[in-house]
């Protein structure tokens, strides 16, 4: 290993990157843009769910009941529908996602102290949203039921409404939200976005950067020079790692300042783990670049290989415990999951080495493995 050659190669690569102004700008703009877009747009909260009401009862009680939904911020009222035949078109045409059908004698049944059935039709296209909406519906229904029961009880027994309310609800559930007291999506999301974006951007940059030389043929200059494969890889990749580390730091700043995510962990530990992760994802780019010959292929492979694990198998959008066994194995075999544990731990839980050493070891093993594979695949004598 000759340090001078590595530095010269890194310098050459750096000049090449900054001379391509659009590429250079995009290398920094893209991660920031993704952070802003996802940070503001990727709310997983289900709110303003468009819904319609079919009210066959048309009584004070049924209007009252419908109003509970109308006034909720989770639902957006789109109007009353005349009868159930209209419902088909509304749901199929994506105008509403839920329809509330209140049958006749709703008021009468409640007044007589009976159970009053209602029908809730939910568009099941998006299963996660369906589940959440069902949760909201259940919450509103149980609130209405408790109100009516307390009223009935206070009338029958002649006790004050407040006491009756306590009697109909003997057990109360107090939920304490840990690690993220306000259940704001953005708090738990912003740290994971660092993981997501650092999984997308470095492989892309690296793969394209290396394959560019292959496709244009300038790599033959390297083949015929005295530079050794190891020197070439180090010098070539150093600028990309540097750009990605700078990006990661900026994303951390955005997460803590703009999005106000709390950072409770050890900054040094986090910085160390982040550098390791960036080296890992750069290594993915390196391996891809060794396997393909054209930049188009490099881009496609880099996006497919990185988007799927980063989005689906890392715990950003999808709960890890709900993965199937096969998918769970896959999640454990890929780096994003480990780094997700690290960012979540550092940001929200204030845990450090003692809880996360295994994750760091796995990332280090990945970095060594990927660069080793890249080194083995790179030969200065291409098969002729």
């Amino acid at each position, binding site marked *: 290993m000759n340090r001078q050659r590595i530095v010269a190669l890194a310098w050459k690569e750096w000049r090449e990157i900054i001379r*391509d102004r659009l590429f250079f700008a995009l290398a920094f703009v893209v991660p920031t843009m993704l952070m802003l877009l996802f940070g503001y747009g990727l709310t997983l909260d289900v709110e303003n769910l468009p819904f319609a009401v079919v009210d066959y009862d048309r009584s004070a009680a049924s209007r009252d009941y419908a109003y509970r939904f109308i006034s909720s911020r989770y639902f957006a009222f789109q109007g009353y529908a005349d009868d159930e035949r209209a419902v088909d078109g509304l749901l199929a045409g994506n105008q509403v996602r839920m329809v509330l059908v209140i049958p006749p004698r709703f008021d009468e049944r409640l007044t007589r102290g009976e159970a009053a059935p209602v029908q809730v039709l939910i568009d099941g296209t998006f299963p996660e949203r369906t589940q959440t909406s*069902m949760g909201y519906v259940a*919450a509103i229904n149980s609130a209405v039921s408790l109100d009516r029961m307390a*009223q009935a009880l206070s009338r029958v027994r002649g006790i004050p409404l407040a006491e009756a309310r306590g009697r109909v609800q003997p057990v109360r559930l107090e939920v304490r939200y840990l690690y*993220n007291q306000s259940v704001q999506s953005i708090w738990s*999301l912003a740290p994971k976005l660092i993981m997501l974006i650092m999984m997308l951007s470095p492989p892309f940059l690296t793969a394209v950067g290396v394959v560019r030389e292959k496709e244009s043929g300038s790599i033959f200059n390297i083949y015929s020079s005295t530079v050794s494969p190891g020197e070439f890889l180090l010098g070539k990749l150093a600028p990309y790692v540097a750009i990605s580390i700078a990006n990661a730091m900026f994303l951390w700043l955005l997460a803590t300042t703009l999005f106000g995510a709390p950072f409770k962990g050890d900054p040094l530990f986090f910085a160390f783990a982040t550098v390791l992760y960036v080296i890992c994802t750069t290594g993915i780019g390196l391996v891809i670049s060794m396997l393909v010959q054209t930049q*188009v292929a490099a*881009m496609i492979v880099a996006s497919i290989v990185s988007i799927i694990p980063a989005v689906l198998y890392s715990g950003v959008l999808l709960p890890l415990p709900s993965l199937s066994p096969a998918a769970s194995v896959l999640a454990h075999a890929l780096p994003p999951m480990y780094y997700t544990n690290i960012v979540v731990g550092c940001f929200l839980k204030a845990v450090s080495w003692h809880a996360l050493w295994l994750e760091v070891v796995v990332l280090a093993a990945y970095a060594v493995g990927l660069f080793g594979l890249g080194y083995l695949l790179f030969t200065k004598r291409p098969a002729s």
Partner: protein
Amino acid sequence: MRNGLWSPVGLRRLRVMTHKELLQLFRDAALMVFFLYSFTGDIYLAASGVSMQLKHAAIATLDGDRSFASRELAGRFQPPYFKPVGDAGSPGQAIRLLDDGDVMAVLDIPPRFNERLQRGEQVSVQMQVDTSNSVLGFLTSSYGAQIVGRYGLEVAALREGMSGAGAGPRVEADVRVWYNPNQNDAWFMGISELLTVITLFSILLPAAAMVREKERGTIEQLMVTPLSPFQILFPKVVAMTLVILAGSAIALFGVLGPLFQLPMRGSLVTFFLVTALYVFTTAGLGLLAATVARNLAQVGMLTVVILMPMLLLSGAWTPIEAMPPWMRGLAWISPLHYFLDAAYGILLKGAGLELLWDSVLAMTALGILVFGIGMRRFARQSG
């Protein structure tokens, strides 16, 4: 017009150019392998492994009462939503379980729970929920509240003698989930992934095909031929559309249909027509990017700049309704937003054009606009 666009000569030129594009595409072996993988393996992975729902959330109990009532309540946290892992032992141990991510929630039942219930007092039960993942946290507390609520009502009914037929006035919801009654995640994830892959390829392939000619200088050779700018651009889009449609057919009939029993309720002809229209529209965006970029690396970055917001603003991953208003506005100019409505509408809901005409119309308008701008820029650059 002897050599007009739709004259025999013009059509032959289109055919020859399309053939050239297809040949060029098929010769990139690594690309074709990954193209096939994207429409099969990738979609299989997305559809098979992933569930957006809360299933088997590990829950530990801290039973301070150890009575019949407390065991009864704790025993109601059962699969499919919960997976009881037994007693945590001590509060410190419970916090450690939560810290290490071994459990999702801890149910804390206070001492004298049974006794106070019998006396008619109101008792609070605590649940500590890990909300590092806020969706999961919400679902956990929502299901927990439902279980405890139902238990409470039963206790109240017994205590106040309201059991039997007239068990007090209450609302009972009969929730019916349409189009996907078993909440099969594979259908949603599979289609969503298919649309993502279609989008990726329909931006990147035409854009890259265009810029590669620029980068290598072969565009100059095309310029000196009698071909008009349209005759150069259009075959690229046609070739890519054909390949992407073939890929979609493989994904639908080779993966999603046989392996995941995806119901294709609507007309498949309509689906493929709408897909073709969508690929055209999106390819227009790619060509627009190609007129800005000078080399392939730039095209790649620009593709990400276009692709990511499109995916995000389409409603595939997150509900558009919950976004801030300015973002909801942007969703109206994302062709994927319309394609998503149409694709799910046709495949899952069995909707036809009579319901989806507005989406299709909007997509067409966007396509013409984008393609027009791209053509103009290209013609000016090469003129």
